[in-house]
């Protein structure tokens, strides 16, 4: 099957979109025209420069409405598997009955990133938006290493404490620092022969499961993640690995 949809303004398939951007040129009518031609060159049609003005001496700002003919076949989208979430009792029961011991989980904000609110939301007792964090589960033995943890330090910890699941957070993404840090961790675990036996989970507002997979992680969790989703995922995977 194939169902192609397009952006929607007020009529199906009208392809209407809003764009805004800056051009590094002083504003004049010619700048409006440059904006229009630029958006046309991108393949849009019905390009209307709704606003164009100077925002600094050498910079102009534009608001543009335009239409696109490009559509997307939504049946071809590989939707991230809908993660079914167990409650605390469910996770605890699963781990107790199938694994018979607590899963050792280490969490950290690696590299120079000091944004701990996200990883804390997942790990701390308190949790996130009414959903309790991993510390609350009997199924987990948790270590929250905190912020700005060097990759080497985390790997050492994983080895020394025989950690089962590593949760790493990256919030700062400027200049690709998140990718660099995630990659460094995956590579070092590999080099130390720890990758096989640890579940490796990435998180942060710009993380998607797809991105995590590309980086060689077992899963990725993005904005708005609830701790129970993560708990369920870890429990299921570790149990599966123990009883393949």
């Amino acid at each position: 099957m194939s169902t192609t949809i397009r952006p929607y303004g007020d009529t199906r398939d009208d392809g209407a979109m809003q764009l805004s951007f800056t051009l590094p040129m002083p504003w004049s009518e010619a700048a409006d025209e440059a904006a229009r031609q630029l958006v046309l060159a991108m393949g849009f049609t019905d390009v209307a420069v709704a606003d164009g003005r100077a925002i600094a001496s050498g910079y102009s700002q534009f608001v543009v409405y335009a239409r696109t003919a490009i559509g997307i076949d939504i049946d071809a989208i590989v939707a991230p598997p809908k993660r079914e979430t167990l409650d605390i009792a469910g996770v605890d029961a699963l781990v107790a009955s199938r694994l018979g011991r607590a899963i050792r989980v280490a969490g950290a904000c690696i590299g120079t990133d000091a944004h701990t609110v996200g990883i804390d939301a997942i790990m701390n007792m308190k949790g996130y938006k009414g959903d309790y964090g991993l510390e609350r589960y009997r199924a987990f033995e948790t270590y929250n290493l905190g912020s700005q943890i060097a990759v080497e330090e985390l790997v050492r910890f994983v080895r020394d404490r025989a950690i089962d699941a590593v949760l790493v957070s990256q919030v700062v993404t400027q200049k690709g620092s998140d990718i660099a840090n995630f990659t460094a961790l995956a590579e070092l675990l590999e080099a130390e022969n720890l990758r096989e036996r640890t579940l490796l989970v990435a998180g942060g507002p710009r993380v998607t499961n797809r991105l995590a997979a590309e980086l060689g992680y077992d899963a990725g969790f993005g904005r708005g993640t609830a701790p129970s989703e993560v708990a369920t995922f870890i429990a299921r995977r570790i149990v599966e690995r123990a009883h393949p």
Partner: protein
Amino acid sequence: MELRIDLSAVASARALAARITAPVVAFVGQHSTVAVERATLRLLGLDGVGRDEIPLPNRFVDALAPSTRARGVAGALGAAMAETGASLDAIARDVDAGTIDLEAFAAVPEAASRAVLEPLVRAAFVRIDRARAAREAYLARLPQGAPPLLYVIVASGNIYEDRSAAVAAAEAGAQIIAVIRSTAQSLLDYVPYGATTEGFGGTYATQENFRIMRAALDEAGERLGRYIMLTNYASGLAMPEIAAIAALERLDMLLNDSMYGILFRDINMKRTFVDQHFSRLINARAGIIINTGEDNYLTTADAVDQAPAVLASQFINEAFAHAAGMPDAQIGLGDAYEIDPDREDGFLMQIAQAQLARQAFPNAPLKYMPPTKHMTGDIFRGHVMDALFNLTSVMSHQTIHLLGMMTEAIHTPFLSDRALAIENARYVMNTARHFGDDIEFKAGGRIERRAAEVLASALALLQDVESRGLMTAIETKTFADVARMRDGGRGADGVFARDERYWNPFEEALAPRGALA
């Protein structure tokens, strides 16, 4: 937050407005219009189109000789029915086909006409009253939520697209849906027929379109647990007819201004005065809240200068509505947030004006319109202007809150524009829910001084209008900087003096005692 305002000035303004409108109401009592007569036919049950797709009510009224028409269409119709024993519908078809001569029944006594129409009149009231009762039952069962009531427009031209857009808006939180009419429908001297899918800048107001939208919103309302109100436009050459079909199809509100057509559409003033009165008689019975159009003063002229004219017009609209028997709770007086955003302390002036209206008309469901004129293609700035408008509205307890669209200067709203506008209002109105209740104005501060100034100027304006008469005032650019002659404008030929034997069963039933003295 209460303004210390001169209550005696408010009382004087109200008294002046009553004196200003009295002679006009008297004039109304001696005249009728083709639109009033067509509305009468519609209430009696006539609908459909005839030759050349012309609506049957038009065909019928146009077929009347002037002298017959002067006695009212009801008499002519009743006579024909009494004499021929045929139904309204059959007679109207015959009129359309030219196979019946309505003048032939001139001799039928009035009593006979009245008798034969009586069941139709009763049926009309049953339908109107049922719609009203249905609304009340809905509102009791599915409360619409607290004011300011979020009001958005749909305007695709296609009633089916409008329907989807309206339901989406209701889901996003809209409490009132307005279907904007096709550009200048107010100038059509008839009501278009059937479901329509083409229009410019809006969708035709037709009875079928009303029905389609009403059904969709009732369904959405059930699903959302909130009754969703529906509104459309009456003002224009077909004002009384639109009031009639809106009453039948359970619209909840109608744009209905006593002077909008005159000033902004160059419709003849006599025509408008007569039409607005009859339309409001119907609105009153139907429990429909009218929305007046004072905001229009602000889109063509400077909003700071026009503030007194807005207030004066609100008093006049109120007086006309009272004359048609409307209770305050149905009089949605208009105002708008149109002061130049670059003006220092413009926000204070907006608050002064909004709160002044609130206190001058304490029981009226005020209609508050968003910034439009000063909106530009800079959607980000526009969205912030709308936020301050939303704040002003919740602070001053406005009732009917038209949502501002960040794309106001660009296109009629996209689905997303409405959703973002609703999100803006919901956020602002919730985070600042009781802000207005928690503050007071500094005595004699900028806000109070501005309110006092607007009130004093409005009073002066009303005094001037009263001394010269409303029609003369309109002839001399008193409102909206435009002059309209009493015999000029569109639709003048549709106004006629009533014969002394004129009668109209609906007017008789609806007119407040002594109003058309």
